[in-house]
């Protein structure tokens, strides 16, 4: 039985899909963000599988559209973009390269996502986790809001240089 060619990271179609950028975090590619799960080619059809970061992520439609256009531009006529929900996206999937690009853009990358079993504990005070300021490097920063311009980020402020900055939340 002939199965789909599971594309290695070397394949050209993968390279094209992997270089499409996130519409809301344009410094990151979909591969950096960890939402690009798989690219396969079979009988001339390129099948791209992506996963949403958050359920309501409004960028999903744009990502699909950008993937189709990028691949068509690169000569692949038949492109099928699919969603996969399981396993749910985790901020741990942002690559090292992605973390470096976030920090360079002034956005603090996420720490390790919580691993939980049993009932989820309440957090009644802002978490004390130390998120270093991406501008001056000081560890003395505070969370000012749990939510920010996109679902995946929180707002923080540096107490050393006084700059506000965004922080990709750990989920």
């Amino acid at each position, binding site marked *: 039985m002939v199965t789909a060619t599971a594309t290695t990271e070397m394949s050209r179609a993968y390279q094209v899909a992997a270089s499409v950028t996130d519409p809301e975090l344009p410094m990151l590619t979909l591969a950096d963000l960890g939402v690009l799960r798989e690219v396969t080619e079979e009988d001339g059809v390129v099948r791209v599988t992506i996963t949403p970061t958050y359920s309501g992520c409004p960028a*999903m439609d744009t990502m699909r559209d950008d993937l189709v256009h990028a691949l068509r531009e690169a000569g692949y006529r038949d492109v099928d973009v699919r*969603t996969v*929900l399981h396993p749910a996206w985790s901020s741990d999937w942002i690559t090292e390269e992605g973390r470096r690009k976030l920090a360079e853009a002034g956005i603090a990358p996420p720490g390790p996502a919580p691993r939980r079993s049993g009932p989820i504990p*309440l957090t009644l005070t802002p978490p004390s986790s130390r998120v270093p300021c991406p501008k001056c490097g000081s560890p003395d920063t505070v969370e000012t809001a749990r939510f920010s311009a996109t679902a995946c980020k929180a707002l923080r402020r540096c107490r050393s240089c006084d700059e506000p900055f965004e922080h990709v939340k750990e989920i």
Partner: protein
Amino acid sequence: MSAVSKMAFDNAYEAITEENDARWAYGTGFTDPLAGVDTTVPAEVDGADLAAYCLMLGDDALILSHRLQQWCTHAPELEDEVALANIGLDLLGQARMLLTRAGKADGSDRTEDSFAFFRAEHEFRNVRLAEAPNGDFAFSMARLLVFATWRLALLQRLTSSIDPVLAAIAAKGVKEVTYHRDYAAQWVVRLGDGTELSHERMQAGLDAVWPLVGELFEPHPVELRLGPAAVDVRELRPEFDEVIAQVLGAATLQVPDAEPLAGVSGKAGRDGVHTEAMGYLLAELQSVARAHPEATW
């Protein structure tokens, strides 16, 4: 690389004239939030019951999302405006997947829009807690605390549903609703343990929400028939009470003692029997889609 970065619209004019107009939120051509997900209903699960259950959980999220959206331009601070909008967006995302799942499970192939915009009030199966008008900020925070605490406990159990689609939607939702619950809990503590006035208003908000709590733990026959595909809401009460006691303790507030709001002949939100507020809410939610039924966006 160059070919790809070129199509990423260096030129704004090119971007709007090119056939790709997704940047402007119109006509992406991708309307199915479950595109490519295997939506086969497991053999041991009844499709009609599963669809009804997806509508219950989807309508809870859709209707509360609408209430949260109504805070836009009315929130006390920009940060809270953004937070409430983000929470509403998460819930809207959950609703989109659940309504789409319903249309696949019952075999009707109805879309999320068809469920959201073209059902009548008695066909909505959300709990009445979700539809209650926003009231003041304290009422909205009390309602969000109750809703998120209950939904988080529910979704966490739903991650082991024998329907893999429902389990996957729940697993994503758990991560999101954890943040919603923390957000509401922190506000309840801040206001309850704040000034005399904020304490009084927060307690009043909780007292006003409480009659709507009982319904959350009344299992509907559909939920019971679905067995391991669904969650028996009666099991959620101990965890709910424990979390609420922890928050209200820190907030120096009292757990209200209120009789549950009666239904009509024993029927309530899950049966499509709603409060007066629901009709007004749906009029706002549905009027544009109904005035332009052929429109796409």
